């Protein structure tokens, strides 16, 4: 077997195995932070509302009267089976919260990436081509400002801009659509398309526009910077020099030789942005009252529900780690230098 054909599966195998300790560390950190910290989760959430007996019963149900290492083992065992525990404040399985609200977060983040790429890549290429000219400065400033602007403020400004025209600025769909579309996949957009109700689909898409654009604007700054810098670097490459030396017109040199190589790292960065996107989604969802996981997290933070916060944060951590592995694998597939 040649080295080239054997190394890719091995690389992927190694990468996947490395995830296990990484997730373990994250889980331990989350567990230690939320369990060992002072304060009792049950009394923090429902203290004063229930009798001491009822609180003791809840503590027993949640296993909080067990020694810490037992709780830790229980927690790890549960996470492996995708059981993130029950919420304390309204006693729902956290996995149900994720199922019911995950779809909205998923479509929001995918839409945001689409906007970020549609805005970021062309602007980055333009800025790179026109280095140190006025458009370059303007585009870079745009990138800095959209990144600097708190996402909820961008959202608020967009709301103020479109509100006079009656464009929807709140929630994922009108109450009517939510009522009419039957639930199959828990992803409202997909459900609306399946139901074949054009009006409902359009309504859901309209509701997506502002939140996705808001989150997309946050992400696009990163892509502008990245594409611009990469284009500048690849323009200094020997192969670009060689292409120029062969007498190829500058616009073809840029289009055929420099652009393509400048775009490869975008895939890596999409993966790295998953963490930022998750954080951005929490804020976007609160701004637009979007029925996603982030909004649920905010709700449970307000309720001081340790279990729900722990479950949801664990879920976010797992998603981020899995995304980083997927990106590494995709990278290894497209770029042979990664896997040596």
């Amino acid at each position, binding site marked *: 077997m040649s080295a080239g054909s054997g190394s890719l599966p091995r690389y992927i195998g190694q990468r996947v195995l490395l995830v296990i*300790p*990484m997730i373990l*560390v*994250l889980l331990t*950190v*989350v567990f230690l*932070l*939320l369990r060992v*910290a*002072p*304060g009792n989760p049950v009394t*923090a959430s429902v203290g004063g509302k229930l009798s001491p007996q009822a609180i003791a019963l809840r503590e027993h149900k949640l296993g909080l009267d067990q020694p810490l290492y037992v709780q830790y083992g229980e927690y790890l065992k549960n996470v492996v089976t995708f059981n993130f525990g029950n919420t304390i404040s309204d006693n729902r399985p956290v996995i149900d919260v994720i199922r019911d609200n995950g779809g909205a977060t998923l479509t929001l983040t995918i839409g945001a990436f689409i906007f970020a790429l549609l805005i970021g890549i062309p602007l980055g290429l333009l800025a790179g081509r026109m280095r*140190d000219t006025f458009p370059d*400065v303007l585009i870079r400033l745009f990138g*800095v*400002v959209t*990144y*600097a*602007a*708190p*996402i*909820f*403020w961008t959202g*608020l*400004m967009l*709301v*103020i801009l479109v*509100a*006079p025209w009656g464009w929807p*600025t*709140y929630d994922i769909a009108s109450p009517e659509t939510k009522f009419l579309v039957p639930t199959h996949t828990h992803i409202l957009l997909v459900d609306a398309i399946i139901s074949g109700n054009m009006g409902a689909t359009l309504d859901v898409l309209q509701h997506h526009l502002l939140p996705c654009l808001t989150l997309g604007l946050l992400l696009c700054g990163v892509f502008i910077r990245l594409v611009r810098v990469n284009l500048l670097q690849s323009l200094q490459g020997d192969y670009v020099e060689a292409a120029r030396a062969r007498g190829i017109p500058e616009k073809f040199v840029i289009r055929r030789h420099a652009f393509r190589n400048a775009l490869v790292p975008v895939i890596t960065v999409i993966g790295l942005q998953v*963490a*930022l996107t*998750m*954080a*951005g989604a*929490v*804020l976007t969802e*609160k*701004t637009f009252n979007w029925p996603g996981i982030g909004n649920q*997290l*905010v709700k449970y*933070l*307000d309720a*001081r529900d340790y279990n729900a*916060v722990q479950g949801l*944060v664990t879920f*976010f*951590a797992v998603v*981020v*780690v899995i995304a*980083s592995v997927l990106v590494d694998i995709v990278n290894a597939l497209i770029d042979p230098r990664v896997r040596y």
Partner: protein
Amino acid sequence: MLKRLLAPIRNTSGLARWILVAGILITAVFVIFAIFAPWIAPYGFKQVSANGVPFPKMAPPSGQHWLGTNDQFFDILSRIIWGARTEITVVALSVILAVLVGVPVGLASGFVGGWIDRVLVFLMDALYAFPSLLLAIVFAFLLQGPLGGGIVAAALALTAIYIPQYYRVVRSTTVSAREATYVEAARAIGARNGTIMGRYLFGNVIQSVPVIATLNAADAISILASLGFLGLGIQPTQAAEWGYDLSRALDDAAAGIWWTALFPGLAIVLLVTGLTLVGEGLNETVNPTLRKRRFRKVVMPTREPSTALATGEVEV
């Protein structure tokens, strides 16, 4: 001293210099707001009346209230100026704490190596991989109980998320510098580990810290505002905070009340942009791969062609 402080500005030219100067100017305005808030702000941050006359609720900008008032009857301009004090205090505190912890730990970890180093790297990498806002949310959520929603709790929550960054940078520079000849020389003349770390390595691994610190400060402002927006930041009775004000503005925005949202947000954007520009500008002066120095006049010695070759170089 002044000459040394101004060195980054002198060393740059063109765009990099403008970026640095613009960043410093913007940041300076907010620092002035922060220091002199009681004298600059027309009213207190939780003042709802002046001379016995109550402020109007959600009044649009006027001569009396330049930027209007919000739903809690507060004067928005005053909230912004007092808010600068809050943001800058919290961010300065958190960045200083993160540097004080991250740099020595990174230096020692990289220099000593061994299993402690490996465990620390693993822990820090895991923390670094975690979305920083979520980490800050968890810390703020926890600290809110024992510490209350004050400036210290917010600063500590931010500190926790920035320590890994300093640790990683300082550790990796230390690891590569550890085998350098000057360290070997120091060891040969009998310097102890503490001396090598403190006298020889420290100055060399600390180079990139100012850049990271400024960029962190910019990031910290937006995270602090985000925490405030989510209701986990500084409690409104303790200090003015821009993110909290924006969360109050949420309900007004759809009704067309723009001034409660526009101005606090602009303050955040300006301060974050200012700090980012300072960081970028510094980066271009510190990082040799990005640096474009000004051309200096070439002085060619007239006689002795052999030395002219050696000294008549153009600095690029």
